């Protein structure tokens, strides 16, 4: 059986963390491909319902950054 890999949903603020994730690419940093990023206009937009929905949809972790 293949090793279990978590699926992580990331809510990233358009102005900081999303730009930082872009910069990680520009700098050719590497990280595991388990993250799916959802861009939000500000972490102020973050609602607990999104976290719950992500977990219900099978996410193993939710990362909010901003």
């Amino acid at each position, binding site marked *: 059986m293949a090793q279990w890999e978590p*699926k992580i*949903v990331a809510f990233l603020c*358009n102005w900081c963390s*999303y*730009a930082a*994730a*872009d*910069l*990680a*690419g*520009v*700098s*050719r*940093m*590497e*990280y*595991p*491909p388990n993250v*799916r*990023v*959802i*861009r*939000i*206009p*500000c972490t*102020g*937009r*973050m*609602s607990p*319902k*999104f976290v719950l*929905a*992500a977990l219900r*949809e*099978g*996410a193993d972790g939710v990362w909010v950054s901003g």
Partner: protein
Amino acid sequence: MGLVERKATHRRYAQAIPGAFAITKRGTAPCRATCPAHVSVQGFIALTNDGRYREALELFKQDHPFPGVCGRVCTHPCESACTRNAVDSPLGIMYIHRFLADTDRASGKPYVPAKKAQRQEKVAIVGAGPAGLTCAYFLAIEGYQVTVFEKLPVLGGMLTVGIPSYRLPRDVIEAEIQVIKDLGVEFKTGVEIGKDFTVGQLREQGYKAFFIGIGAQECKRLGIEGEDYKGVYPGVEFLREINLGNRIHLGDRVAVVGGGNVAMDCVRSALRTGSKKPFIIYRRAVEQMPANAEEIEECREEGIELMTLTNPIRVIAENGRVRAIECIRMELGPPDQSGRQRPVPIKGSEFQIEVDAVIPAIGQETDWACLTDECACTLNDWGTMRVDKVTLQTSDPDIFAGGDAVTGPATVVEAIGAGKEAAVSIDRFIRGEELAGDRKTDWRPVEDVPTEGLPHLARHPMPMVSPETRKANFNEVQQGYDEETARAEAHRCLECGVCCECYQCVTACKAGAVTLETHGQKPETLTLETGAVILAPGFEPFDPSKFDSYAYAKLPNVITSMEMERILSASGPTGGHLVRLGDHKEPKKIAWFQCVGSRDLNRCDNSFCSSVCCMYAVKEAVIAKEHAGDDLDCAIFFMDMRTHGKDFERFYNKAKDQGVRFIRSRVHTIDKVGDTGDLAVRYVTESGELKTETFDMIVLSVGLQTPAETVELAKRLDIQLTPGHFAKSTPFAPVATSRPGIFVCGAFQGPRDIPQSVVDASAAAAAAGEILAEARDTLTVIPEKVPEVNVLNERPRIGVFVCNCGINISGTVDVPSVRDYAATLPYVEYAADNLYTCSQDTQDRMAEVIKEKGLNRVVVAACTPKTHEALFQETLMAAGLNKYLFEMCNIRNQDSWVHKHNPDLATEKAKDLVRMAVAKVGLMQPLQEAQLDVNQTALVIGGGIAGMAAAQTLGAQGYTTHVVEREALLGGQARHLFQTPDGVPVAQRLDQLVSDVSADPHIQMHLNSEITAVEGFVGNFKTTVKNGDQEQVIEHGVAIIATGAKPLVPTEYSYGQDPRIVTSLELDAKLKADDPAIKELEAAVFIQCVGSREPERPYCSRVCCTHSIDSALAIKARNPEANVYILYRDIRTYGEREYLYKEAREKGVIFIRYSLEAKPQVAIENGRLLVRLTDPILGRPVEIDTDLISLATAILPPDNNVLAQLFKLSLNDDGFFVEKHAKLGPCDFATDGVFLCGMAHYPKPIDEAVTQGKAAASRAVTLLARQHISTIGQVAEVNPALCSMCGVCVSICPYSAPSFRAPTERFWPGRAEINPVLCKGCGLCVASCRSGAIHLKGFDNDQIFAQLFALNEAS
């Protein structure tokens, strides 16, 4: 600086937007510049060094068809020019390309360049020597039908018949000529033009152009008696016979006359044909011989005598055959026209030598039999062809010439260079283009290549057959480098040009962004018509290498603050990991040395303070502790701690609390501690104690200075500079230089930090705007708008465009499979992949596809929306779609680039992201951007210096401006000031400003007035101004807050108890009034920081140090005998104010430092005014008997609360207004349409207040200049039916966008509504709304949920 190695092709820095690459070129390397064929020498050497021999050879052959030939017989001017000469010895450049050619030849599949499209025009080349062959080679590549006519039965000209095969083996020549044959060039040997065919006949046969490269094959005569005897063989003929295989024996003793390569070839060939004692007769010294040094050396090795300073005067014969030669000794006289010393015969030194043969080899000339009557070409006085120097065109337009026939006997590589240039000319001639055109003729080499301290690397010698073995035969002497040697030799290259011009980037760039033309870019001179010029050339960090005592250049763990910034940066060389550069050890102790290259006249010429270093050192220390943990010991060695910026003192205090040590001492020496890399610091404490402390790392806080080239620029522009080389300006016109129309901002105006530079920049723009106001909008082009298609209620028809981004995405992600997968998703009507989706042609195609397929939603899976969303949205608009019907999917920055070792999972992730984007875009609705009119009127609150400066700028740009001033007079606090630091009375300039502002018809004054109410928002404010009992409502689009500040009324130092104790402003009043008592003062004491930098007021009032020193100097000017004391905590005369501090010390003002814990005590005893304190240097109490005490009182903000509430602005803990962004928005507020300037922002001197006033006006004009403002479409909207009126949104919004509807409204009274103009779309209210009444367009719940629900659909 140089923390990381980088290639010539590089990205400027990680955060650069656009993240485009740049190529660093220092210039043309001397080797390439000097080579007549301009071979990209550094390029082929770099490729050789990299082991890419084939590419290296291909590169060589772009410029030169004979790497093997020239690798043997070239006179290598490139090596003479090699920068390595300055270090040890030049690179063996020709040996390296010989290796490349030999490798290519041995491969069995020699490289043949690709031909361009075939052309029908025929070209005739006369002469198959190096010039003709080269011309044929390049014309064949261009696609022409080339025929070469050669008189001799063999090809190669002098290469074949002039150079002996022990130097240049025949198979080498043949192999390189074979390539030319393979290119389709036709050769006709044994054909003599002028005899067998004439040029006229060839013209009739359809030849469109001719190249004459017939060389100079006729030997020049010695011009002495007996030259026609048997046994005298002209050198070239002798070589030709031998090279054609005719063996000639000349006898044992052969005199070869001449010092060039032909003479050397003759003498060595004679040796090889059996002559026992061939020798050279040459009239100058060995040093003047034109032959290659190597060949002279090889002659000597072979035992050949060089009889120099000898000239033949007669050939003596016996029975018609040579018996002897009579010569005369020469000596070197004065230099001739060529600069060489002219040989002069020594009288009476004639002598005879017995010889069997004489070979004259003193030069050649051309046989011009080919020039028949139909040629209009002309010869010059030397018997060579007259041609245009650049184009090589002769007097007959279709005839071109080059090589020895034009230059007289010269080198192979010069002939090759000529053949190449002639080929360019012939191509242009046939195409009917201008011949000279933009041809590169300026090949100036780079000069500023650093060579100091480079390690010596010996040149690799050429392996050779021993003299004994080689003397007897014509086998090749030089054996060539092997691979290892060639690479090792290539490794010695100093890369003079930085970019080596290997052009591999041109091949690699799929987008065609880098081309050969890019590499050929030259500086251009443009002439621009402008109404104003703004100078923002910046500064350079001081280079501390010159300070031996800090050993910056020698000790790797001594770094500059700029390097420290990079080390602390996440995108820096260590990825933000704090380590020493020397050994990558994590430091435990770091010291900062302040004032390196600032406030220093002993070791450098920068006597000014650089203003920013104290603060950046504190910042670096705090960040270093954040990186490495609290245990990191940080010590800052300083003279005065100058944290005079807004909120800087607080930061300084916090750093002290966090354990950063501040040591008041200037360190003199750094010593290394053994081989540990640690650094010992010896310093003297303030009390005179000598201490030694060891640190792991030392950071030199280097100052700011104006680069030499900027000083040059200033000279060219004819603007005046200050003594510190900053642009000179005056306090009331701080961004104007001495030349009208030229403005300045940033560090060239004086050393300054980011906020001040940003303020400066806006102010300079305003100053330029004032004189350009009339031209506003005269050059504006408004793009045509495509009418929007209504897609409401349409079923989604989604187009997905997947980008390859060259290989950036497709190198990792399987783009075709993502595209095919996208096509299977619901509502997707069209899916395609593009090489570069952002390219203009793809954009045009995309717009067509949208229209053709009737798409109403678009997904682009490519890079990041941060940089490219706007571009694609424009394409949507061009296709008539609302730009919000779009979603970008980031499969490059957040996928292919970060998962390059995981292509399968990266592809899966790309599919997931595309699916999520498709799910979201289906729910996107067209959004409208609200437009509102801007009322083109400004309101300035406060009539002080800053407010008036703002009003003046707005008025000058034609905007109606209302100035509201609480007092009856304009001028604010400046009315109380005596003079500016440059010694001009403030009143004089202030009066001028007041009268200018009052006279401006655009400006309306509201004196004795206050603001009582504000309604509205950006573009449309309604403000109520109250003047006594009268109220007036002013409608305006923008507001500028310039409410200023006020002085503290001191409660300490016995203020108020004695008229001799005054505040700074009260002293100014005395100085203004020229109070005679000032002259009578025997002593005066200034006490600094009265109320500033105290626990209840933890900020520096910024202006008081300069102010007190200025007043102290004023007292000294009136009474030089007065004892003047300044009691201070830190003297903060930042920038060029430092000169005043220096002047005060020179004039005898005594500065005594005190600490917050031990403040001076003021006593009034028996009418005497006494100040007591402890001198920190002497450590003893001091009592000063004084006639005057001036208190440098703190600057306090006025009560700004009401105004803050009216305009919804915030105040900091000290009561000053909080700007939008401390660094980047120093004149803006978070609230749109309201701007900030002057002391309402923070205490500041007049020049800075004027600058910020102008800057705030400038920011305001960015709104006023528009007729309308468009808002964003992605804003929040309330569904009033669901609103429960809880008010959370109203209280939580940082932009004051939500409000309650009036209770009197007909619909939904009291419910919340959101002003789309103010909403920034952050979504805070949406997430906070308990009733779910608020929706955020573009990021609504259903859209985000759609993305979440799409997470798992595939797997």
